[in-house]
């Protein structure tokens, strides 16, 4: 690991100033991904700005009935919150499907959103990777890519975003709250992460000197019936091959409202708007659910070794919606 200076900040202004003072400084949250990447030589910040003692460790009720989740709230505390468990079970389930008990105890909300892909080539500094070293090439396209993207990838990068939490937040229509030298702004989670395009080194749209302060989850009455289903290669402590976050509102056998997002398919949590459009106002039955899945997955462009993900995503979505149907 390269040497770095450690700075602890206790107020927001100090954090933004400290990160702006050194071009390669990084914020430190729980460190469960960043410290590992530093040890691997993938990340080499000269300064770490520890933001875990900023006053962002609370989950507050918003006046509209939603929740404001502080960026420093630990994944395990968020999953354990009674309001999250009863109003947004999909979020609690997604968190609990990720990592291990020990890691969830320290991983933060902000850090979870900013975790890097687990593409083996990204983590291996001896191989080319456009995300780690722009212009060096993508080793995964011709290499081992059975768990890579089938939607929205580019010739430069076929990596997926690894977060489970972000998939639930995308389905719930949550928004990331940021602060930077120019002030505050809010970005929907679905627009926060980006597709790789020509610049896969940028996972998200936030600027280098912006800090995540919170994530706002808007009220969604029918989210009390919501599910996160994760398919992986072992029963626990593994990243998703495919995952689905869904909330479904069925009245008189018809879909009145629905929210769907996929994980494991793209460089970002994938909100399934085409599937939602097919479902709205239609019958809540298996035939319609399959039609909705097909409408979304029509755009899939699988790689040599991951065409299985199309069928897996299709059946996982159908099964999830059936489980949510009264």
């Amino acid at each position: 690991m390269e040497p770095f200076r450690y700075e602890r900040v206790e107020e927001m202004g100090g954090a933004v100033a400290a990160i702006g003072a050194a071009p390669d400084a990084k914020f430190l949250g729980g460190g469960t991904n960043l410290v590992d990447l530093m040890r691997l030589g993938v990340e080499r910040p000269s300064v770490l700005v520890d933001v875990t003692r900023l006053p962002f460790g609370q989950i507050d009720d918003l006046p509209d009935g939603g929740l404001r989740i502080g960026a420093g709230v630990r994944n395990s505390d968020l999953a354990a919150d009674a309001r999250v468990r009863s109003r947004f079970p999909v979020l609690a389930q997604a968190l609990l499907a990720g990592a291990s008990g020990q890691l969830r105890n320290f991983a933060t909300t902000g850090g979870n959103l900013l975790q890097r892909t687990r593409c083996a080539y990204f983590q291996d500094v001896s191989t080319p990777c456009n995300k780690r070293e722009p212009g060096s090439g993508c080793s995964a396209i011709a290499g081992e890519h059975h768990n890579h993207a089938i939607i929205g990838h580019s010739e430069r990068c076929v990596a997926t975003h690894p977060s489970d939490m972000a998939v639930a937040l995308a389905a719930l229509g949550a928004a990331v709250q940021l602060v930077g030298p120019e002030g505050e702004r809010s970005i929907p989670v679905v627009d926060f992460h980006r597709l790789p395009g020509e610049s896969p080194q940028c996972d998200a749209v936030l600027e280098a000197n912006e800090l995540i302060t919170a994530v706002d989850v808007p009220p969604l009455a029918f989210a009390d019936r919501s599910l996160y289903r994760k398919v992986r290669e072992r029963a626990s402590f593994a990243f998703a091959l495919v995952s689905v976050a869904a909330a479904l509102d069925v009245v008189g056998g018809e879909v009145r409202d629905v929210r769907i997002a996929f994980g494991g398919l793209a460089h970002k949590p994938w909100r399934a708007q085409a599937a939602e459009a097919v479902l709205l106002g239609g019958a809540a039955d298996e035939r319609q659910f399959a039609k909705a899945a097909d409408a979304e997955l029509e755009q899939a462009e699988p790689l040599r070794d991951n065409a299985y993900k199309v069928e897996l995503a299709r059946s996982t979505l159908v099964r999830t919606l059936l489980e949510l149907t009264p």
Partner: protein
Amino acid sequence: MPESSSVSLRVNGAEHSLSIDTRTSLLDLLREQLDLTGAKKGCDHGQCGACTVLIDGRRAISCLALAVAHDGAEITTIEGLADGDAAHPLQAAFVEHDAFQCGYCTPGQICSAVGMLDEVERGWASHVTDDVAAEPRLTAAEIRERMSGNICRCGAYPNIVAAIEEVA
């Protein structure tokens, strides 16, 4: 140039103030500077759980914890669990149930189980809890899921689950 920083920790009840390289993990500080070699270095990437200790009562991966970021914390390692000569109930249960073979993962397994049982006590759900809004009941399936961050290459899992069930 290495950068150094000072850190104060309370480890198994004893205060320590040290000047350390900022890169020092909590695991390396415990093992190399305090001679507490109970917590083990397995993968050094947060994937095996052999380095599990308790930070302020919560189970944690000490290989991915930068010591400097935990200034002021209360750390409990496997060496701090016994009450004098009396083994911690989980230590006794691991012996009773033959819950290990080579023993390398055992300190991490036991520290993880201590933290895990406290999480259950506080009503936390898990990935296998049917209704995340309800109080969990600690079945064998719940123990297996909650302990999935601790790998045992010898495969002593059935006896590890039995030992934890006895104490739960």
